[in-house]
């Protein structure tokens, strides 16, 4: 992918201590270029989700600064956060779709909140659902879809506002291997269109096959930053990774 000198995410001396005293992140320095595809690996509790939360400003760092597309987001006003979130798509292991809305409505909702022109909504939503091959099932409720299908709807929703960055926190954690590859393929496609993609995962095979940049975290510290990396289990006293699927 195009790895430019133009950074889309920058973190400087970042640390995060939760109110309960847990040091989730320690002195993280990270620069991600526009259009990169990265994996974030590490044992459970190593701080992968926490790192992502700092990017879409679910939490504020205890020290340090985060820049998204050159703009410091750590000193951003509360009222600006929604605008940031519209530029960052996020998907999770548990999909997080609104259960009473259809696939179509779920995707449309992310457009409605932006005050998008009403006439454009059906066209844009259909486009996004087509991208993830969910156009035929647009009228179904999340409960009527398989996990893989729900995740694809979630991806369509994450992409609907044409984000700079797609954050995927264990996107295949609840999926069987076939669906997992399916999702990975879609993420690659999204990345090929220019969106920066950051995937936190425990799926070793996936990381090894994809041959992308790999960030290895261990107990809140960035242990390795490997270009075209392989899955490297972090040196840790904890039990070995439990590999999902595959």
């Amino acid at each position, binding site marked *: 992918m195009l790895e430019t000198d133009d950074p889309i995410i920058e973190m400087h001396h970042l640390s995060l201590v939760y109110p309960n005293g847990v040091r989730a992140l320690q002195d993280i320095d990270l620069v991600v270029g526009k259009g990169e595809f990265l994996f974030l690996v590490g044992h459970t509790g190593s701080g992968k989700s926490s790192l992502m939360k700092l990017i879409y400003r679910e939490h504020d760092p205890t020290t340090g600064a985060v820049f998204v597309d050159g703009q410091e987001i750590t000193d951003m006003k509360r009222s600006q956060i929604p*605008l940031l979130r519209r530029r960052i798509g996020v998907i999770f292991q548990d999909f997080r779709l*609104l259960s009473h809305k259809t696939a179509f409505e779920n995707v449309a909702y992310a457009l409605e909140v932006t005050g998008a022109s*009403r006439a454009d909504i059906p066209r844009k939503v259909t486009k996004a659902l087509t991208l993830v091959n969910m156009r035929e099932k647009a009228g179904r409720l999340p409960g009527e879809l398989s996990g893989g299908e729900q995740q694809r709807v979630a991806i369509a929703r994450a992409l609907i506002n044409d984000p700079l960055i797609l954050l995927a926190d264990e996107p295949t954690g609840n999926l069987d291997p076939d669906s997992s590859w*399916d999702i990975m393929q879609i993420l690659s496609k999204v990345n090929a269109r220019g969106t920066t993609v950051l995937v936190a995962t425990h799926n070793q095979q996936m990381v090894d096959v994809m041959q992308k940049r790999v960030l290895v975290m261990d107990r809140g510290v960035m242990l390795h930053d490997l270009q075209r990396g392989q899955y490297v289990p972090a040196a840790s006293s904890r039990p070995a990774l439990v590999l999902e699927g595959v």
Partner: protein
Amino acid sequence: MSHPPRPEKSPGRTPEPPEASPKTGQERIPRRRRGPSGGYYLECFLREVLINIRRNPLMSVASISTVMVLTLILGFFVVLVANLDSLSRELAGEMQVKAYMSADFQREEAGAFHASLMKIEHVEGTHFVSKDTAFKRLRERLGSRITLDDLSHNPLPDAFEIRVDHPKALDVVAEKVARLPGVGSVDYGRDVARKLMALNQVVRVVGMVILGLLFASTLLIVSNTIRLTVFARRKEIDIMQLVGAADWFIRWPFILEGVAQGLVGAAMAATVVDVAYRLVVPQLHKTVPFLPILAPGEVLPFLNLGLVSLGCAVGALGSLISVNRHLKA
């Protein structure tokens, strides 16, 4: 689901990226975006409200009934106070200080005496009742039961009826009048006035306290009901925030939901008060014919409007409190 690369289903309709613009020249996070009309948002919100009420009717019932109890009690209280108020005003209109002049009072002095009465604070006007007029009145009142013709002379004194601007001023005015030269004695409806004013005062104070407590507890119950709704939907709110919904966008459906609940509760209460008052007034008129009760048309329109507005306000405020608590957390 199969392995990558996935074959395209229809070759003619290759999926395009959602937006044609290339990613590289991406604009910065915009400071502000011009939104569409308020009508569009209102429609979105009303749709949400309907969905939510349909999904959780029991929650709504709890809120609606508490608002109803509050507005119902308030409604009856206002009716009571309004009537006591008008009653005491009515009596106050009749209430006057009567100054009976001493025997040596000369009719020619009446003008001067009127002037000195008017100088007293709270005096609105005076009316001179000569001993002859008083005698005539007495005779009319007694009718044929007792004849006064045997009296050698008119035993009644000349008198002034003094109107005051407020029942509370009766005491003071009477005292001052008594000290004026030429006044034999003064008289006024001291006890009735006092008791009525005291009663009205007590009703008002007690009512205000009860209403204050009631208002606070209604607010508490409504905000807790909505809080349960908010709690039941916290995942949803998190999702809304995740996709970039602004706080107000999340807040409005909840506020409208609260307003709707308050409106329904208050409208039911207003209906009950309205119907009850219209039924009771004719009955009371029959039983106590001279009791000056306010006509339904004098109270109910304002009362209904007030109750409904209050219901909406309580609903809105209750929602706002609980949603804000969640959003700021």
